[in-house]
């Protein structure tokens, strides 16, 4: 028979009513809480029985306290034991007791003191972390708006990493805001009830919001672990860094180091780990190994210090459209590269047919193309607008999209990129086919009606493979 059981804690820190009710139900089913972890609660098997639970708050405790309970905590437990309350488990400010006597004097008998004690306890970790989370969500949102992320909306939504960030930021908002609103609303009612009526105010939490957070975290982890090797490695390095910091914190707690020593050492380790991570590991991780289909070749060039030779890579990926489909060329050393990325909202294909490094004199025509398929209709307009505004900042850009005739391309709408300084058209077009955006750059290829039609035929209806 199973002797232990773990459960994800979905209760808010202040929701003592919810926790007490749940623990009483668990005891009636034969499970008694024995440990509170960061995220999981551990139960042990007992005879099913009617137990009364009480969640008490001990504001003087912190997450960094030594594992051996303080004199104050022991005294608090002695007081509770005198009234028949047995400690089931505790973590930082949260202390959970049970009693076999249904008529035992409750741990908290006065509402005014209970509300104030809970508030002092909540200020230590719970509220602080929620305000920080809200601050981070605001920072990322502000960063996104100020950083003109809307221009790159289609790209952000097409890449798993940035797409996950798009999910994480609203979730951070939702969780922190709903928890803060829930707590302060409860506190306002509880203070009024306690002072005016001498009554306790029951609490309640939003388990759905907590569950959403855990689901998102699981999704981000799963997404990172099934992404490219570079993403997987970066994620694992971050995870290892987090693990090192937590391990330091826990070892110091077990060594009974004071909370101040624990916090100081943990912060120092945190800084060191960040330095190692950002200075040593991440720059190395950024150098992705060449994919198996890459053909290495040496490229020599002249620099200040003389001749330098570097290894570059040529690719031979199948492309939906080749330069040779549109024009004749003698050049036969093309690198054909294609990169696909996809999320539930946007699929992006980037492909190019380019000359190799060093073959500058060949003057061979080249082709670069990005195709976005926007799966969610309401996102299409902002994604398109973002792309059209890509060159809108006159401080940096002399280019601009101007609407062109879409008919030769077989497209719904078409724009051509223009150099605004000397008012000349460039060889770049933005084409729209339904909810597909095609941005194509045809350097050195003279386009006529037949070629435009061919591009439309190949890319406008090009099915995702």
């Amino acid at each position, binding site marked *: 028979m199973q002797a232990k059981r773990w459960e994800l804690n979905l209760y808010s820190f202040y929701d003592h009513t919810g926790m007490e009710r749940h623990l009483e139900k668990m005891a009636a089913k034969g499970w008694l809480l024995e440990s509170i972890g960061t995220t999981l609660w551990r139960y042990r098997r007992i005879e099913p029985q009617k137990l009364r639970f009480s969640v*008490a708050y001990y504001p003087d405790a912190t997450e960094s306290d030594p594992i051996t309970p303080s004199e104050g905590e022991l005294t608090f437990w002695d007081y509770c034991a*005198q009234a028949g309350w047995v400690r089931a488990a505790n973590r930082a400010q949260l202390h959970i007791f049970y009693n076999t006597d249904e008529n035992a004097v409750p741990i908290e*008998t006065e509402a005014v*003191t209970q509300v104030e004690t809970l508030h002092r306890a909540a200020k230590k970790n719970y509220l602080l972390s929620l305000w920080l989370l809200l601050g981070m969500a605001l920072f990322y949102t502000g960063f996104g708006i100020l950083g003109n992320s809307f221009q790159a909306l289609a790209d952000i939504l097409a890449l798993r990493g940035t797409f996950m960030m798009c999910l994480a930021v609203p979730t951070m908002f939702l969780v922190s805001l709903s928890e803060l609103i829930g707590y302060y609303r409860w506190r306002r009612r509880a203070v009024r009830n306690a002072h005016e009526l001498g009554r306790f105010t029951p609490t309640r939490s939003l388990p759905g919001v907590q569950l959403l957070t855990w689901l998102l975290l699981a999704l981000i982890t799963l997404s990172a672990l099934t992404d490219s090797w570079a993403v997987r490695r970066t994620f694992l390095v971050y995870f290892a860094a987090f693990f090192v910091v937590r391990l330091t914190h826990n070892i110091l707690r077990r060594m009974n180091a004071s909370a101040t020593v624990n916090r100081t050492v943990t912060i120092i380790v945190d800084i060191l780990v960040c330095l190692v991570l950002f200075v040593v590991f991440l720059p190395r991780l950024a150098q992705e190994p060449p994919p198996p289909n890459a053909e290495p070749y040496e490229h020599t060039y002249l620099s200040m210090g003389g001749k330098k030779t570097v290894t570059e890579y040529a690719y031979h990926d199948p492309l939906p459209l080749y330069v040779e489909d549109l024009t004749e060329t003698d050049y036969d050393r093309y690198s054909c590269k294609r990169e696909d990325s996809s999320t539930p909202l946007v699929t992006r294909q980037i492909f190019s047919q380019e000359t190799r490094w060093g073959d500058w004199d060949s003057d061979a025509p080249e082709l670069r193309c990005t195709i976005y398929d926007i799966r969610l209709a309401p996102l299409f307009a902002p994604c398109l607008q973002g792309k059209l505004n890509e060159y809108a900042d006159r401080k940096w850009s002399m280019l601009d999209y101007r609407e062109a005739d879409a008919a030769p391309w077989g497209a719904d709408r078409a724009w051509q990129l223009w150099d605004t300084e000397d008012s000349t058209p460039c060889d770049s077009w933005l084409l729209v086919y339904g909810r597909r955006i095609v941005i194509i750059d045809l350097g050195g290829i003279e386009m006529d009606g037949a070629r435009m039609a061919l591009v439309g035929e190949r890319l406008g209806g090009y099915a995702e493979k």
Partner: protein
Amino acid sequence: MAREKFQTLTEQMFYVLLCLREECCGMDLMTRIGEVTGGRVSVGPGTLYNLLDQFAAEGCIVETKCEGRRRSYRLTLRGEELLRGEMDRLTAQMNDYQRLLGGGETPCKLSDGN
């Protein structure tokens, strides 16, 4: 701090202070309050622990003895003033009741003799 730094006392605050007119161990206070009030008022261990902590911080009580984890406390002058102030408030309430509903007599005197 509870009740705007003890401007008024709840019943449980009142009895905690009252029972500390004589030195008493914190843990024994729960029993003593029950005896003094004939079981009418019970103070839970969490409430008692936090009240003792707050009263000590405000200088209303003082720790007199520490035997292991058994700490004893006694009321200070500030605590006595607080208790007297609360008694006056309750007396004034009682007198108002007596004057308006109980036959016009003033049955109790306040601590300053009025």
